């Protein structure tokens, strides 16, 4: 690696530490529960979008079915807790494992497809998961599952009114996805994925094992998404197929990365910081009427950002030489 790349990576680490510290301090002066909740959701989706970015951005496989991993992760930690007594703090890792493994049999048929064929196959796989959970009585079917409250504890990841512990939980999650993306950028896999994305045939001729490199990206991406789903389930205390597996969740997970800037370290966070408050605020101030004004604003925002900043909002920040790399 030449010096310019090393310097840039040092700068990224420094930036990462500063942003992490700032986000750790951010909720301390805030007393308002609504704002606390908004920040937690934003940071959670920054992490989810970064998880999506590993497969959709760095590896270039536009998945529109990540709701599957998100929902399955939520169900895994919740059901292990309710049916086997495993504390959700460990359940998070089980969710990572199950969703990560699930990405392999999903990837096996889907990675044979390219372009739009791949994107549509992921939509379909997500829909299959949604329909199966909806009709599966063991997991609560359409009624879903409640997580009963058993007192405040980090092992159970349950806190009656305090939001701060959840804030640090989602922050640790988002930081873990960021760090993974950072390490991948500089790794052999990271280079292989960029090569696969830019030119499949050329990458193959250089000896990149395309199929297994895509499978690795899918497993990591699915695993982190499942972990995020488990955290979400613990945070809201109730899950059903419509709230965690429905197709629009796949879009919610991908959007911050796409609008913030795909295959960048900061795009998912910037995208989430714009999108989540925009959608929450428009919903609470305009959605109450039930007249769809919030949807119109949200949809309009997506169209405008995608057309005006195709390389992502991240391009508004940073230095020129970084842009060249993103392109």
């Amino acid at each position, binding site marked *: 690696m030449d010096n310019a790349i090393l310097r840039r990576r040092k700068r990224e680490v420094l930036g990462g530490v500063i942003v992490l510290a700032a986000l750790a301090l951010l909720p301390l002066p805030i007393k308002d529960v609504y704002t606390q909740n908004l920040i937690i959701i934003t940071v959670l989706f920054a992490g989810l979008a970064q998880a999506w970015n590993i497969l959709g951005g760095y590896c270039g496989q*536009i998945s*529109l079915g990540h709701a599957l991993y998100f929902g399955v992760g939520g169900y895994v930690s919740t059901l292990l807790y309710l049916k086997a007594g495993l504390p959700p703090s460990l359940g998070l890792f089980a969710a990572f494992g199950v969703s990560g493994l699930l990405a392999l049999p999903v990837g096996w*048929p889907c990675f*044979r*497809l*390219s*372009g*739009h*064929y791949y*994107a*549509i*196959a992921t*939509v*379909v*796989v997500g*829909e*299959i998961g949604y*329909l*199966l959970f*909806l*009709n599966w009585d063991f997991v609560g079917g359409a009624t879903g599952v409640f997580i009963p409250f058993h007192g405040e504890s980090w092992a159970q990841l349950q806190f009656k009114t305090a939001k701060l512990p959840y804030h640090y939980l989602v922050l640790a999650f988002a930081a873990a996805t960021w760090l993974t993306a950072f390490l991948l950028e500089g790794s052999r896999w990271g280079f292989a994925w960029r090569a696969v994305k830019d030119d499949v045939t050329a990458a193959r001729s250089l000896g990149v094992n395309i199929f297994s490199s895509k499978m690795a990206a899918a497993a990591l991406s699915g695993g982190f998404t499942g972990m995020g789903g488990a955290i979400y389930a613990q945070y809201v205390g109730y899950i059903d197929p419509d709230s965690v597996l429905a*197709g629009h969740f796949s*879009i919610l997970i991908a*959007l911050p990365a*796409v*609008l913030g800037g*795909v295959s960048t370290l900061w795009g998912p966070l910037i995208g989430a910081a714009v999108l989540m408050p925009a959608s929450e605020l428009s919903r609470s101030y305009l959605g109450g009427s*039930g*007249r*769809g*004004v*919030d*949807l*119109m*604003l*949200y*949809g*309009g*925002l*997506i*169209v405008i950002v*995608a*057309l005006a900043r*195709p*390389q*992502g909002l991240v391009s508004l920040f940073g230095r020129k030489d970084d842009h060249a790399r*993103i*392109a």
Partner: protein
Amino acid sequence: MPVAEILQVAAGGLLMGLIYALVAAGLSLIFGLMDVVNFAHGELMMLAMYAVFAIWQLTGADPLLLLPVVAVLLFGLGMAIYRGLIARALSVQFNRGMVQIFVTFGLAIFIRGAAQFVWGGEFRSVTGHWLADRSLNLGGVFLPLPQVAASLVCLAAFAGLLMVSRTEFGKALEATREDRDAVALIGIDRDRIFAMGWGLGAGAVGIAGVMLAGFYYVGPNVGASFAVIAYVTVALGGFGSMLGALVAGVLIGEVEAFTAALWEPSLKQVGVFAVYLLVLTFRPRGLFGKM
């Protein structure tokens, strides 16, 4: 399963399948022409259904009479969407594929919100029209007339699309599909062809929407469920192939009908998706897609 029942299920599958085929044909046409998947396709169908509902409510006109009106409206809307959004999305330098997906996705959410704004969230239906509640009895197999009419109109629309492909315009369309840069050299206005392609695609799904409104509820989310089936139909038939859309649409209608009858109605789409994944494992470009 007795023969009469098998025939009944198969007939139901065929009637629904022809509608799926026409919805998919519009999507496939646009994709084949310019490599863009319109993720707002289901919402265009929803708008056509609401247009029927609104005009019917206002004037009491029969949905069948509204067919040409709504088809023309949708044609104009499709062209407007191309001129206003898609032409811009095609001209971006970065992440072109992703921008196209999310521009049409944003548009879908916007249209859904707009429909909710105008008509509210509740389900509506067009009742008491000319064909409502009538059915045809073919030796014990009952065919509801609104669905028979819908599938006949869909077949006619398919024939219409094939006729268009034989005209001068159709040849320009085919040439643009083959090589979008070379056609500019022989004096074909590519932008106009693309806009017309969007008009035709939206018009086709509009016709399907009008006929569907005769027997199906209308709501802001009605497009979403049909859209997933439409993407599956197009991918199964092969992007850009009209014949593929027709065959895949009917196949999907049949698989759905038989899954519901033999297994479990609420899992009928799982049967469809399973067949789709199975076919794509062996033919990654769909049944009639160019390899």
